[in-house]
């Protein structure tokens, strides 16, 4: 077993601490140590985006980020979108537009969409499509996902 390294981060608004093996990915730490199973492991190579989380305001593939590099960072996962007011507007739009089929890609899609909308309140449809290039869905054919994100963007604007 690898050396374990102490990390401390801000995870969905709260301080979190753990001791993680030095070779782990951030995704493994989120799922196994912090019990946040929203982000998914699919390709493990950064091709599919199902592990997308937001770290210090930037969306990243958590399967490619070393867990040790979580130290000192601020991380948002899909679990952190839920507030006292209910689900995030992006999640609401996914429900309303029927943008979910098997659901495996959904947490990554929603976090990437949340990132795109946070970065650009005046985002175009084309920019949404390009911004989701790194997220693969094998069920929907993407139309409803893109519709949902456009709906959320227009509702926020």
């Amino acid at each position, binding site marked *: *077993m*690898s*050396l374990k*390294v102490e990390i401390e981060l801000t995870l969905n608004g709260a301080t979190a601490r753990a001791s993680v*093996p*030095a*070779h*782990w*990915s951030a995704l*493994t730490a989120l*799922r*196994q140590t912090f019990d946040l199973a929203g982000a998914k*492991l699919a390709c*493990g*190579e*950064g*091709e599919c*985006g199902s592990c*997308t989380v937001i770290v210090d305001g*930037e*969306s*990243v*593939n958590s*399967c*490619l*980020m*070393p867990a*040790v*590099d979580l*130290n000192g960072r601020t991380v948002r996962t899909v679990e952190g979108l839920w507030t006292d007011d209910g689900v995030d507007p992006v999640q609401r739009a996914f429900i309303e537009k029927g943008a979910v089929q098997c659901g495996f890609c959904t947490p990554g899609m929603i976090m*990437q969409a949340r*990132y*795109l909308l946070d970065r650009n309140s005046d985002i175009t449809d084309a920019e949404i499509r390009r*911004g989701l*290039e*790194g*997220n693969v869905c094998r069920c929907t054919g993407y139309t409803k996902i893109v519709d949902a994100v456009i709906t959320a963007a227009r509702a926020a604007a």
Partner: protein
Amino acid sequence: MSETASQAVPRIEAYYAPTSLEEAVEQIAAGDVAIVAGGTDLMVTANGALRRIKRGLMNIRHVPGLDGIAETGGRIRIGALATMTDILESDLLRAKAPILPATADRFASVQIRNAASVGGNIANASPAADMVIPLLCLDAEVELASWKDGAVSTRTLPITDYFTGPGKSKREAGELITAVEFDAQGAGGHAAFFKTGPRPALEIAIVSMGFMARIDGGTLSDIRIAFGAVAPTPIRAPETEKLLDGQTLDDDLIARALESADTEIKPIDDVRGTAWYRRRLARVYLEEELRNVLEG
């Protein structure tokens, strides 16, 4: 890669997160460490590279001075930790080295651009590395730091002379890539980046091409042509550049340039494409770009 498999694999005995360049290069000199920044190459191969080679893992993201994009006295310096997103969004580069943001726009996906560093793209030394193509066109120099006689020592290597084969370069075991530097480009230059793969995003190039030139009343000068994934390393096409230099484009010159470029590339058949297809694509890209120039 399953989570179970990834846990069964590497045994890392030491983790370093240096907060100074001195600390970083001294530790690199001392031992068997894998260097990680964005992780987008290293973590993909966690089942391979990390297991095979390294006892220690070094995170260089906290080393000051390795980030940023700045111009000083006509030279632009990009720190090794600058991400593809930093390059894509840099107003300085858009104005004075537009081929770099044009390439970043075709690099992987948003999530990878947010993590992948320019230093990592060079260190990985892939024959298909996207960001190396514009840096070749810019005649960039790679700055390397190491620990010598109790102090940090730096040297620079021209990127045109940096790569020696797939995954191989002149960077020595104790050296850390700290920056790339190149001349700021004046206004009015022409620059373009081409790349192909079966999917618009997240492609490892089957062929890539960078092209820069000055065009004055139809006459070409200061031509830089670079190709990726058609040789053991990313390459420039110096004979083709010479052929075009000082000339005015016409159909005959374009035809001769395509023949010349064809002799300068050495593609192979592999899982992503055949040598025949790569030769074809290289011609298509160069012709398309020269016709863009010809037609203004």
